[in-house]
């Protein structure tokens, strides 16, 4: 049973392994190396350095060392207070550290000989004092987006397993077999698989790992087989129900909390020095993200700005205006901490139905657009019109936001092949369920599981416009957002530290925050599950506001 199309890996899995290949960089890196002149060996170590810049980086490293030796006081400050960004871009990391020193360091003796080429390097480079260029970390101008993808391997499948007994492994086998039958259209075989699996489920450890989540996947598969792919009725729960489940998911595990405080930190920094700010939240829910930001703005040196919040959410069916209710509560909080605050609700059943004029953005305001797990819903394409994602990204850009914070599931659940999607989802959600085990509070945990279960059902049993959970990994979002005219704002070591510390407060051991090319990911047992990033529109001088 062949599961993976080796062609998608660029022919790198021809199946032959040769002992002599240890000195060659893998094919993917080789291709990019010739295009971009990136040193392939350093890329394998996680660093992106142009071969043509190696010598310059080496010189800068020497200067940095000299500076560190000469001013130990600065060194300890460098160690504790400095915010570091994007360590993969070695050249800019070294430069940013160099700029932290109060005086340009005295230059050591020249780099005499390049051991590789045996050429003598011109020593002028050393003795010429380079201009001291302090960098504004917030808006580091960054190399082209094509460099972003140097180190990420597309078509990556991350699997974390725990010790499983045999029947657990059999269950996985059968799930894969069933999914493969579904992909082939052999529904009768798929159905008998389902029956076998139901039987096996009673004998498997359903406390953790694959066993725990298998039941949900079996349900989703049977939904798909018996109700067809439009049968996303599990998603037809009322908005109210969804909000309850969301709230319990928020409480039971740190993913949403991580999303909120990472986005808030970035928004807070972006709003620094601005007096009129406007946050557009793509999915207000209970407004859980905003009290913390309001309080942080209240406490900022120089006083809080005027804060406007526009919350987008589904219309309430029963005549209630739930958006307005949330807005009122937030307004009360803002009043209690002396932050001038205005709220506006925009009711829309789908994000693509929102038009920029509805947000009433004032040209004098600094805008932050906040999207927590919303953008992927726009990826279902309708071949008759512009894809919704492009439309939405385009009007976001037209608002010229100071920052756009994006948090998305770090998963490849939008692949065209059903089996690939199924496999990825199986591993993603079993890891997520595993992490939920650490939560012992009920009913948080049970309802959180239902929340996740709905996602699973959507990924597995729906297609077309019904399938909204179209998660894509960070590497794809980078390409997409860069292509739409956005450039990354890097999340630095301060955001990283905050996330790490809050995790130890809130959650069990096993969660890990990682830095990935200027973005932060939160995962369980070395598997990233959610990714947070920040963006700004690339200015092209033609920023326009909606009429």
């Amino acid at each position, binding site marked *: 049973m062949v*599961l*993976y199309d*080796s062609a998608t*890996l660029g022919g*790198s*899995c021809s*199946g032959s*392994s040769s*002992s*002599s*290949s240890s*000195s060659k960089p893998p094919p993917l890196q080789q291709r990019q190396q010739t295009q971009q002149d990136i*040193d392939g*060996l*350093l890329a*394998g*170590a*996680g*660093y992106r*350095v142009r071969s043509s810049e*190696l*010598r310059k*980086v*080496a010189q800068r*490293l020497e200067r940095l060392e000299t500076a560190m030796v000469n001013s130990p006081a600065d*060194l300890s400050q*460098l*160690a*504790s207070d400095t915010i570091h960004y994007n*360590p*993969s871009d*070695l050249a800019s990391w070294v430069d940013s*550290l160099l700029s932290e020193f109060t005086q340009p360091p005295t230059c*050591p*003796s020249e*780099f*005499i000989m*390049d*051991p*590789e080429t045996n050429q003598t390097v011109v020593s002028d480079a050393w003795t010429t004092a380079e201009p001291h260029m302090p960098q504004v970390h917030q808006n580091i101008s960054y190399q082209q987006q094509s460099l972003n993808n140097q180190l990420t*391997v597309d078509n990556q*499948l*991350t*699997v*974390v*397993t*725990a*010790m499983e007994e045999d029947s657990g*492994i059999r269950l996985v*086998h059968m799930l*894969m077999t069933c999914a493969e039958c579904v992909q082939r259209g052999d529904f009768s075989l798929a159905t008998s698989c389902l029956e076998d699996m139901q039987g096996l489920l009673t004998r498997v450890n359903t406390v953790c790992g694959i066993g725990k989540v298998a039941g949900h996947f079996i349900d989703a598969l049977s939904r798909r087989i018996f109700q067809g792919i439009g049968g996303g009725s599990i998603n037809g729960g009322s908005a109210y129900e969804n909000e309850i489940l969301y709230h319990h998911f928020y409480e039971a595990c740190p993913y949403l909390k991580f999303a909120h405080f990472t986005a808030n930190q970035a928004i807070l920094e972006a709003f620094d020095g601005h007096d009129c700010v406007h946050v557009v939240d793509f999915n207000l829910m209970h407004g859980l993200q905003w009290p913390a930001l309001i309080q942080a703005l209240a406490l900022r040196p120089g006083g809080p700005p005027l804060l406007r919040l526009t919350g987008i959410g589904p219309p309430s069916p029963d005549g209630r205006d739930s958006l307005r209710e949330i807005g009122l509560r937030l307004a009360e909080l803002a009043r209690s901490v002396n932050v001038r605050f205005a709220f506006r609700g925009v009711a829309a059943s789908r994000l693509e139905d929102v038009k920029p004029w509805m947000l009433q953005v004032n040209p004098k305001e600094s805008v932050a657009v906040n999207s927590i797990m919303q953008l992927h819903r726009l990826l279902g394409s309708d071949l008759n019109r512009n894809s919704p994602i492009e439309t939405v990204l385009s009007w976001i850009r037209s608002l010229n936001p100071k920052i756009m914070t994006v948090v998305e599931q770090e998963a490849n659940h939008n692949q065209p092949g059903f089996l690939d999607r199924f496999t990825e989802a199986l591993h993603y959600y079993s890891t997520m369920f595993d992490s939920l085990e650490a939560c012992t509070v009920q009913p948080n945990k049970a309802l959180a599981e239902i929340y996740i279960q709905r996602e699973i059902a959507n990924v597995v049993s729906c297609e077309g416009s019904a399938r909204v959970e179209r998660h894509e990994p960070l590497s794809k979002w980078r390409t997409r957002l860069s292509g739409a005219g956005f450039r990354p704002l890097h999340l630095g*070591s301060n955001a*990283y530290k905050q996330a*790490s510390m809050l995790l130890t407060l809130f959650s069990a051991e*096993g969660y*890990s925050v*990682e830095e990935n090319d200027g973005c932060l990911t939160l995962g369980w*047992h*070395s*598997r990233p599950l959610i990714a947070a990033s920040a963006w700004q529109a690339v200015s092209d001088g033609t920023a326009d506001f909606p009429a």
Partner: protein
Amino acid sequence: MGRSKEVNLNECKMVVPLNTWVLISNFKLAYNLLRRPDGTFNRHLAEFLDRKVPANANLVDGVFSFDVLIDRGTSLLSRIYRPATAEEPQPNIAELEKPVTAEVVPVIIFFHGGSFAHSSANSAIYDTLCRRLVRLCKAVVVSVNYRRAPENRYPCAYDDGWTALKWVNSRPWLQSQKDSKVHIYLAGDSSGGNIAHHVALRAIESGIDVLGNILLNPMFGGQERTESEKRLDGKYFVTLRDRDWYWRAYLPEGEDRDHPACNPFGPNGRSLEGIKFPKSLVVVAGLDLIQDWQLAYVEGLKKAGQEVKLLYMEQATIGFYLLPSSNHFHTVTDEISKFVSSDSIKTIGERIMQCIGPLLCVDYVCLFKCFLG
């Protein structure tokens, strides 16, 4: 700071390829930021700066990997690397732990370096190194994400290594077809080499057979200041001061460097005479300031009648094996491959092919004569 330090910087640059120099200097400077004078460690910044890569169950250059939680209690993860085989050219996602099929499959339990404080099993440099080991030795590699100092002192790292050894030894799917046993090697660089030694020690009385130890620039030390430490202090990326810091961070509080964890054949050490200790391959870099301790370790093994092969790489610095851009790298990988495969049945032809591997052009007739002559 005088002329001599500048001269040393130049010497250093001349013995390593440029990209290796950049990599190791980057580590050196970053690590300077992480070690605090009071003995604490800036773990958040360390994890932020460390370049990590996820496991990948899809084949890349004939190797796939996945992470396994070996011990829930300590959150002990290991990354397993497996080679694609002729019978199984594409890994089946439902059967990552499918039994190995060859007559003999070496299983290398690898302990990454980092002086007990830095790096992880999913650090990019070690992920890359382990993948190379798989291709080189046709082995399964199990890279252990052991707990680190100073948050977790001795003996946590050894405990985790021991847990991993027991786990590997009890996996039916890692048993070689020939004898239904797991063919285990312990390997590690820097602190990982130290861990390999101590885990092998623990294995002795337990009945778990370790076929060999591979120690790359293993981290050992002692109270005394040896000649190499004095001569090479600060010359090739490493200072005595940082070495001292790491030992203080790992060893129990109040202990000195003659503690047997640091100095296994020192005043508090134990002789291995008469003990069934695995054969060892010890690689020592000639420009590593702790080489006197590493050479003393080799002597200690020899004196106890243990089988040990020393590979002394004269012009090599620490970390030379991280990037395959030097001759030292190929010599070492060659030796590792021979060390691991010498326990399996090999035809003369296979042995020849092993040697030919890294070479670009070869005089076959000449080689044959060497083998048969």
